[in-house]
């Protein structure tokens, strides 16, 4: 190894220092949220910025975990995320694989998929479909309408196309059916892609918000994002109209400490998924970037 000059090492050191500072800056908001959630309201009001709680208080967490709706909604969201991601992955992967085969109407179906990327049906037509298919007020209304993302489907299809055709031909010669080929050859080779898109889907399902409001009329089924928003967001939009000050006052959200605790509890689970998928992730995001 070449011996590096002092200057080079100094530059490296500087780079590392700057990058560490930037990385720490990224952490600041999270630490702030954590600290506020563990502080007393009095401390939060008195200080301009809290980096670390001076007096540890867990009142905010006690308040959150005492609330039925919050706990209930976390379980709802976990359910939607787990089931939804599984459904999404199965449907996306099987459809993408089907679309790599030369079958009748394959191009038409592909065109229709692309069509939905360009033209969205809009809120009311989708509402009607959900209503007429009897999904209204069931958790499936949050899973099925968004089960397949057209964009993800096309990228995964592209990934499948990059797997040499010879592999499936060899499987065919060995007597494997299409399903067996898909399951034993294609899926094991596509783990990075599936992990990546699984994560995309999981985050998407975890963040389900508007669908929850639109399709569910029982608050017991609301996902965490709806409940969280009702806790955190104050009605800012009407403040310009001024005359609504009374409504604004009457609907004061809970103190900021509880808001921060709620944000943390609602974000942490999905954040914890990332490290486990990290190793696949780096490979996965480059899918389709270079075609060989």
């Amino acid at each position, binding site marked *: 190894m070449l011996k590096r000059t002092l200057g080079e090492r100094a530059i490296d050191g500087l780079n590392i220092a700057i990058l560490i500072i930037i990385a720490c800056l990224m952490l600041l908001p999270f630490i702030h949220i954590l600290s506020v959630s563990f502080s007393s309201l009095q401390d939060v*009001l008195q200080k301009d910025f809290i980096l670390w709680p001076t007096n540890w208080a867990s009142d905010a967490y006690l308040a959150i975990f005492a609330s039925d709706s919050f706990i209930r909604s976390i379980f709802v969201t976990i359910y939607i995320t787990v089931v939804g991601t599984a459904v999404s992955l199965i449907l996306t992967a099987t459809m993408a694989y089907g679309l790599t085969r030369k079958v009748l109407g394959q191009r038409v179906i592909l065109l229709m998929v692309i069509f939905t990327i360009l033209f969205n049906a809009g809120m009311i037509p989708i509402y009607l479909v959900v209503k007429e298919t009897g999904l209204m007020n069931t958790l499936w209304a949050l899973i099925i309408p968004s089960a397949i993302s057209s964009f993800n489907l096309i990228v995964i299809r592209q990934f499948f196309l990059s797997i040499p055709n010879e592999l499936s031909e060899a499987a065919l010669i060995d007597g494997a059916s299409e399903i067996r080929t898909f399951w034993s050859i294609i899926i094991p080779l596509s783990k990075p892609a599936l992990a990546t898109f699984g994560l995309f889907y999981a985050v998407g399902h975890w963040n389900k918000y508007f669908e929850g409001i639109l399709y569910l009329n029982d608050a017991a089924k609301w996902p965490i994002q709806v409940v969280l928003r009702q806790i955190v967001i104050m009605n800012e939009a009407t*403040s310009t109209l001024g005359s609504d000050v009374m409504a604004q006052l009457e609907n*004061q959200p809970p103190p900021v400490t509880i808001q921060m605790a709620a944000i943390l509890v609602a974000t942490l689970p999905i954040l914890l998924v990332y490290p486990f998928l990290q190793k696949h992730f780096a490979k996965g995001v480059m899918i389709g970037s270079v075609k060989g």
Partner: protein
Amino acid sequence: MNIRKSMMLWVVLILMFTAACSNSNGTATPKEGVDSGTNQPSDAKKPEETYKITGATYIFGNPPPKDGRGQKMLNEKFNVDYFAEKIPNDNFVEKITAMVAGGSMPDQISFRSTNMDLFNRWAEQNAFFPLNDYIEEFDYLKAIPDELWLPFTVNGKIYGIPTWSPVESQSFMVRKDWLDNLGLPVPTSYEELKKVAIAFTKDDPDQNNKQDTYGLAIGQDINPTFAMGPYWQHDTWYHQDAEGNYIPGLISEGRKELISFFHDLYKEKALTSDFAVVNWADTNNEFYSGKAGVFLIAPRGMSQDYMEALLAIDPKAEFVVLEPFAAPDGSQGFTAGAGFSRFLTLNAKLANQPDKVRKMLEIHEFSRQYYQASKVTPDNKDFDWFYGNEGVGYNLDENNVRVPINDPASGTEPFLYFIDSTAWIGPEDDAEYPHAYSEPKLIDATQQLVDINKKYKLYYPPHVGIISAKETEVGAELTQLLMNEQTKMITGNRPVSDWDAMVQEYMSRGGAKIIEEYNAEIKARGYTERLWK
């Protein structure tokens, strides 16, 4: 190849189109009751029919689950299958639009006062049930004063039932302990308020030898207003132009005076320095952290949590509520509140079910009973039932104030499940605002505000409930424009002398039309002289 591709695209397009068309045909004949998916009881043989009553309204915070104890109690008591869906406030308009457009308009909708344009649009399309014939039948409807029916009357038909909200005005509270420390009197004019605000900034009112305090807590969109009477208030119609037409407060002479008052304070750092970007929650924090010395107080809805936090920071804090200032035109008093907050409409399809309408109104009447806190006891059966029975749903504290036992999300109390559970507080009733709190200093400040409201007449503005087509179209944009320009004037980025140019811009971009449309309606209502009572 290209031809094949474009052919295929056409086929797809046509497919989509026909699908869309058949879809909309399907909605022309909406099927009822498909949407809710509840188990509909089929006991039509009973002497009294068990009506299925659907409803939708908005909610701040989180509602109880559908199958709570309170819901069962409600259904049993009234022999109905009642459900009022509570939609998060921020997305209320989107969802209710989807429901109505999707052919599942509920039997009753309780709108927010800010949804007047939606209400008017649907009322014009005859989506609501006219209530004119039922008003004489129900005492609670008879008790509603005529002026409150006005906003809900479209082409002579009454489509909405207003829900009570206070006419009492808000005011502003000042740190009395700071005034005393500096030997200043309670301000009675903007000149004096300016002196107080500057003294709060420069003369160390909390005597901690630090320059860490200032005057007025104010946030983005120049909120709160610090209007000490309708003369200065931006969201009311008080001033008149040369032809005698009423004009919005936002472009009035009084507002101009107020903006230059803010500008003077801004120069002295006597109001929140970065107010243009401070949201409402942070504006509250400025006052309740003991930094600012003047802030809003309203007859109800003050946050006791925040007040307690302030008193923990500064136990010596005292508050005095400001009386309205005498305006240059000789008037003195505050503006009355609109008198309604939400309002209930019924579905036009109920026209052939008068008994169901009566049932719904009966339930509505029940849920609007007023139980005066200082007088009511658990012996009052309706009260006890409404709040889920003593010991199960609530307890009474030493001041006879009801304290809920459970989180609303548990759904223990029936009142949580009504579409509208705001009591109607008539003119002869005492609303007992201070009873909402247990913190003595907050009770005292609220009592001061109530007394001030009794002492002065209230101004009843002519514009309440009027909808102007032009305003629906450009009103929000113009309001934002004026707010932005006035914010610039406060910070000195634009001179206050530009006021007339700003008003001119407002006028030319649609303001003139808005004023014209409002005044046509004001004249039609017969409102000429300003009404104080």
